[in-house]
């Protein structure tokens, strides 16, 4: 049996017995065969000793059982690593940051507690996936949309507390939550916002309650186990319309993004869109191959000319509009006016979709996630024997200048590191969050230990390069949390020191997710910092 760090075999055996008493013997997993299912399917440490493998897993069925587990962990100073459905692939999956931790698996807690389609909210447990909530809504014929993550098998709570994003107007998942129930490190249960008021009638309606607003302390956090969470849902709209705006020149990106920022910040466009260029996905023909092979690369004018000859814009954005048919039509008309000053701009209107949609019409959606329908289609894209990826995901300003700068900086960094890079550089930039762009780089996971080591070094290098230019990661794989937190260093790491002070006060034994986001409890700080 693997052991948690610093815990004797006798103590761990006793703790396992007590966990079995608390949740039932069949819900405590200690065999390698069971525990190995919690290893990170996309681990960047394949075949290496550093891979953090759990010692055991425990799966409670309710908040009282979570409290019992936390109290037992305190008694024996056993680190717990909380997961909801464990599908956080690319950011660590279900594996802990600290090897030997016991995984606190909440997927049995999968009850949809309430869905209200008059004031448009839901209250769920952590094991509820986007598919589960979508099914509940369909079965009960409720007129609300969820905002699924892509893919949709993950947990609403897990994704929201990790500050994941989606595509509809409710796409900022943490921002869309309203009210939490949390088991604190001492085993006490707390409700936030209006939930602190016994018999509250507005727990999922007014998010702040009274006094300091603490919910953010439980996102990307090791300060509590979230056992219930409310979410605002989007009223099923009458219609969904998309319109694509294309511009012919590289530098047109600046007015294009300025227009987009205006439309988004004015709440005219509320869904996720991303800046795209055909140079990202065009299959190179002989002409493009020759251009790219030129010493020093092709000039901007040559690339613009190449695309113009093919009747393609240099950049495009697809604007999503949700609401009454008359309104979305007017919004699209207004958007066209807004961009009409860009010379050579072209517009293409997509189909107007009406809701509720006939199930037989679903295949018409290229990406159902944009209309609130969860999907696993991202895994059907194809490819060889993929061993996964980890995401490098900095946030950059929502301006054309910033995007062009980021393109140059990351292209140069890739080149210096000897890494392959496409003609542009990434997925996105995407507007999953208000007022900024999220950029995603997938780092491949390999079978090759040396390649993975090199990739990890490159990943850390990119984190630093981004930080030097003022771009920070919004979320990261467990392997890089320390490095990312290191970059949030204003005033001699005042933020991390604050987190550590809070951590030590609330979790003196350091049992909850030690090391998460680079925040170690006092008893492990020296060894791991």
């Amino acid at each position, binding site marked *: 049996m693997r052991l948690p760090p610093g815990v004797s075999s006798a103590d761990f055996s006793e703790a396992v017995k007590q966990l079995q008493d608390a949740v039932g013997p069949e819900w405590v997993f200690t065999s390698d065969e069971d525990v*190995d299912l919690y290893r990170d399917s996309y681990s960047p440490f394949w075949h290496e000793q550093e891979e953090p493998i759990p010692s055991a897993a425990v*799966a409670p069925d309710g908040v009282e059982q979570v409290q019992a587990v936390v109290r037992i962990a305190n008694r024996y100073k056993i680190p717990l690593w909380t997961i909801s459905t464990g599908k956080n692939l690319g950011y660590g999956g279900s594996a802990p940051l600290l090897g030997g931790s016991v995984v606190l698996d909440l997927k049995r807690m999968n009850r949809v507690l309430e869905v209200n389609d008059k004031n448009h909210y839901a209250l769920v447990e952590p*094991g509820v996936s986007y598919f589960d909530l979508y099914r509940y809504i369909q079965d009960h014929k409720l007129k609300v949309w969820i905002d699924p993550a892509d893919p949709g098998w993950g947990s609403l709570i897990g994704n929201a507390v990790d500050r994941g994003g989606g595509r509809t107007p409710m796409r900022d998942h943490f921002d869309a939550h309203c009210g939490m129930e949390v088991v604190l490190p001492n085993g006490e249960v707390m409700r936030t916002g209006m939930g602190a008021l016994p018999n509250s009638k507005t727990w999922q309606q007014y998010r702040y309650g009274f006094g300091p607003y603490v919910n953010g302390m439980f996102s990307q956090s090791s300060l509590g186990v979230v056992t219930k969470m409310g979410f605002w849902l989007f009223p099923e709209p009458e219609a969904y319309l998309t319109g694509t705006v294309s511009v012919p020149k590289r530098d047109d990106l600046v007015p294009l993004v300025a227009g987009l920022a205006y439309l988004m910040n004015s709440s005219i466009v509320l869904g996720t869109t991303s800046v795209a260029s055909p140079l990202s996905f065009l299959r190179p023909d002989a002409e493009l191959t020759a251009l790219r092979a030129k010493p020093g690369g092709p000039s901007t004018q040559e690339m613009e000319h190449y695309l113009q000859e093919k009747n393609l814009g240099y950049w495009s954005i697809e604007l999503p509009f949700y609401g009454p048919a008359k309104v979305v039509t007017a919004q699209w008309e207004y958007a066209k006016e807004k961009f009409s000053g860009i010379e050579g701009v072209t517009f293409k209107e997509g189909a107007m979709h009406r809701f509720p949609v006939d199930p037989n019409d679903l295949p018409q959606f290229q990406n159902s996630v944009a209309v609130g329908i969860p999907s696993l289609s991202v895994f059907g*894209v*194809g490819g060889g024997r993929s061993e996964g990826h980890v995401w490098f995901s900095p946030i950059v300003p929502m301006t054309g200048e910033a995007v062009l700068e980021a393109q140059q900086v990351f292209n140069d960094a890739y080149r210096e590191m000897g890494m392959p890079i496409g003609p542009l550089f990434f997925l996105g930039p995407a507007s999953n969050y208000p007022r900024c762009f999220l950029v995603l780089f997938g780092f491949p996971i390999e*079978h090759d230990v040396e390649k993975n080591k090199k990739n990890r070094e490159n990943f850390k290098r990119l984190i630093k390069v981004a930080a030097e230019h003022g771009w920070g990661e919004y979320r990261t794989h467990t392997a890089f949390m320390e490095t990312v937190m290191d970059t949030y260093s204003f005033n001699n790491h005042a933020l991390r020191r604050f987190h550590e002070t809070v951590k030590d006060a609330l979790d003196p034994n350091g049992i909850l997710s030690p090391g998460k986001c680079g925040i170690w409890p006092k008893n492990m700080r020296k060894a791991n910092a």
Partner: protein
Amino acid sequence: MASRREFLQIGVAALALPISARTGLTPAVSGPANQSVPTPLYKVIFDQRFLSSLAFAGELRRLGAPIYGIKGDITDLWFHDLDARWKREPIGIAGLTEHGPLFCLERLAWDHGMRVVYRADHTYRPDGYMEHELTGSEEMLREAVDLSSSGANWSSRMATLLTRCPANRAQASKMTVVTPTARQPEDPEHLVSWVIAPVGAARKFSRS
């Protein structure tokens, strides 16, 4: 060293004997592998985009097996069929797909008390050969030895084999068979055939 994928998907200690077709394993002469009871298969999944997968489905149709076609995406299969079926009772499925659909189905199956009990990676090589890396019970590997003479009919041969996968979970062994096989024009470089089946000791997380 066993890869993580093999480790996770087979989930038992492999014998770690890369058995080639020339190592003396003799093919099963006739009938199901060692007369074991085959895993009941609720659905056998194929990918409508690939010729080898279509041939696989054709053979299964001939054998009377229930088939289900996808185009890379298992969302409809999962949401409109398997989720409800597995909540009632775990039951085996099999398939010949790309890696992505298996990756999803395996993880979804874990929560219903099921595991991948047989897997074969089929890779077209640039030299006109196909490499079949099989991991499963020795009974299954014995059955698979004649892949070496199947050539372009390899996927039909796999169809037959998968319907005979024993219901009992035996210790996993490994075998590689390399055969001259021209790549079908529509096929991707790599396909995988697999069987997911209920495993007695595995916990069932789902709520019916």
